[in-house]
């Protein structure tokens, strides 16, 4: 629907641009039609009231200038700063339909359509748009997709283009090294990322090989022995609050003094949103300084 409105607007501009007014009367008539069209179409965007039902969706919306249209969010939508004051309508796996409806939304952007409450919202006439990027490239596609859904196509495309440029630069600078890395999601129990995870793809894109990247589970529990056998050169810890010094001591004990441990803000690499490239560039920068033998 959004796309149609957009087209009609363009057609009208087109007409006006190419035909010189035959008379003043005709010109004013056209101008009037144009003004009427603008008046009746532009509020269609402004009145879109959006629920951002995942942290990365919230980040994308603010990054493409649709932040003012966001009326509600879920827990952990904590970036940018303005998003922290949004009313909350649910958590990661369910929404409270009543609280959501109280905000009179016209559109809900969800990560998973099966999230409890989403079908109810749809049946009550709220437009549902899905964004669940599973790979790095999908993030850029989803930014464009969300942009056109909320009437911010231009800014979304600008953002996606600039991210694409940074991604291309990153790709070009990556020699195909495939350095073995262990991604320590959690130390006790020791959890890592398996095959079908977003982070697995992120690691691949920055020239790393996840040593448990062929495990079919999403967040497999592994033991230290398995990590030793997999011989990683680098450990990545997605947390800045964890006691990293302690983890470094632990891994040096088992993997030798040569092991490198990098910590990174998890929101930058786990959320498939506009800050992803910040996280990837940060990791790539850290890797550059390490000079690892292969």
């Amino acid at each position, binding site marked *: 629907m959004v796309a149609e409105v957009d087209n009609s607007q363009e057609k009208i501009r087109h007409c006006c641009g190419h035909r010189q007014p035959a008379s003043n009367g005709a010109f004013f008539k056209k101008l009037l039609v144009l003004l009427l069209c603008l008046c009746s179409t532009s509020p269609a965007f402004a009145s879109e009231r959006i629920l951002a039902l995942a942290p990365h969706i919230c980040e994308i919306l603010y990054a493409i200038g649709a932040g003012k249209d966001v009326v509600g969010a879920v827990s*952990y939508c904590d970036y940018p700063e303005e998003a922290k004051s949004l009313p909350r309508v649910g958590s990661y796996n369910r929404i409270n339909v009543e609280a959501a409806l109280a905000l009179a939304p016209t559109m809900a952007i969800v990560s998973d359509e099966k999230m409890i409450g989403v079908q109810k919202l749809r049946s009550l006439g709220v437009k549902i748009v899905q964004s669940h990027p599973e790979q790095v490239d999908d993030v850029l596609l989803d930014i464009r997709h969300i942009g056109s859904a909320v009437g911010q196509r231009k800014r979304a495309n600008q953002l996606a283009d600039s991210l694409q440029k940074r991604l291309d630069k990153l790709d070009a600078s990556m020699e195909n090294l495939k350095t073995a890395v262990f991604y320590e*999601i959690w130390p006790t129990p020791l959890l890592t990322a398996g095959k079908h995870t977003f982070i697995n793809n992120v690691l691949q894109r920055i020239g790393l090989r996840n040593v*448990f990247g062929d495990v079919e589970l999403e967040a*497999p*529990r*592994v033991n230290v*022995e398995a990590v*030793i056998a997999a011989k990683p050169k680098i450990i990545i810890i997605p947390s800045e609050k*964890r006691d990293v010094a302690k983890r470094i001591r632990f891994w040096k004990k088992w993997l030798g003094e040569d092991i490198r441990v990098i910590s990174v803000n998890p929101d930058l690499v786990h959320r498939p949103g506009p800050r992803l490239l910040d996280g990837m560039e940060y990791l790539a920068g850290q890797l550059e300084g390490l000079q690892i033998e292969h």
Partner: protein
Amino acid sequence: MNIRKNPYSLFCVLLLISLAVALIALGMGEHWINPLSPSSDMESRILWELRWPRLLTAFAVGGMLALAGAWFQVLLGNPLAEPYVLGVAGSAAVGAVSAMIFMPDAAWAVSLGAFVGAWVGITVVLFFSRLGSARLLLAGVVLAAFWAAVLMLLIALLPERGVALAYAWMMGDLSNSALPIWLLMLVWAAALACGLILSLSLDKLLLGEKHAAALGVNVPHLRKLLLLLASAVTALAVTAAGTIGFVGLVVPHLMRLLLGSLHQSVLIASAFGGGVLLMLADTAARTVISPAELPVGVLTAIIGVPVFLWLLLRRNA
């Protein structure tokens, strides 16, 4: 066979079986390592710093749970009783998950939370210790339901990753015991010793409280002692390894089926049998879908149930 009657030979036989199982389990892992002659320095470190402590933790925790289960079954006069029946595991889980919520970046907080939670649960249960068996059991079941509800409430407040961690804890994890191994082994030995000292009184209690009193047992005193002892042992087991089900319920019954109901042999056999079952379950957990691991609590049931059912049928025939 006289090992049924002679506790010393029973103890020695079970000790040998446990050592044999431990030796085989020690070799199993990511790669087979011969425990008697590891080929490199790293292999011997893997054996003695990674696998051995974990095996000993499994043995001690399994034995403690089985002993606690045997005690609860006598105390409550109910064959369905197990270490977690009075809600100790539930309150420990509430403590552990609270720690995950309020101190999400400190791994040690989870064990502390579990320990504190377990003792809160025990303190509440002790208020009901003077009730008769049936009412104590009822109070325990209701308390367990209460803790389960609080647990669900807390889990609803956790972030997505936190939920995975909470479930991982609830299904048991022997790789990160916050308690030192020597402490666990000491508790195991002390629990077995206490059990053996009390075994005659327990046999009398099995006849019913009136008969036990007539035979000179101070029943209220014994019940209180038993409740405290079984709960304390359960609290330590849960602190070390999270909630591991099934061992405490089935191992005592298994041992009764094999050895008769006299507590001296049942308790000795449970202390070893629980340990061996959990060592086997944890070895399977480490190796079946390697390099990933399974939750050990799932495997105790998968290994234990068929054995138990087979014995039940055989006994009946």
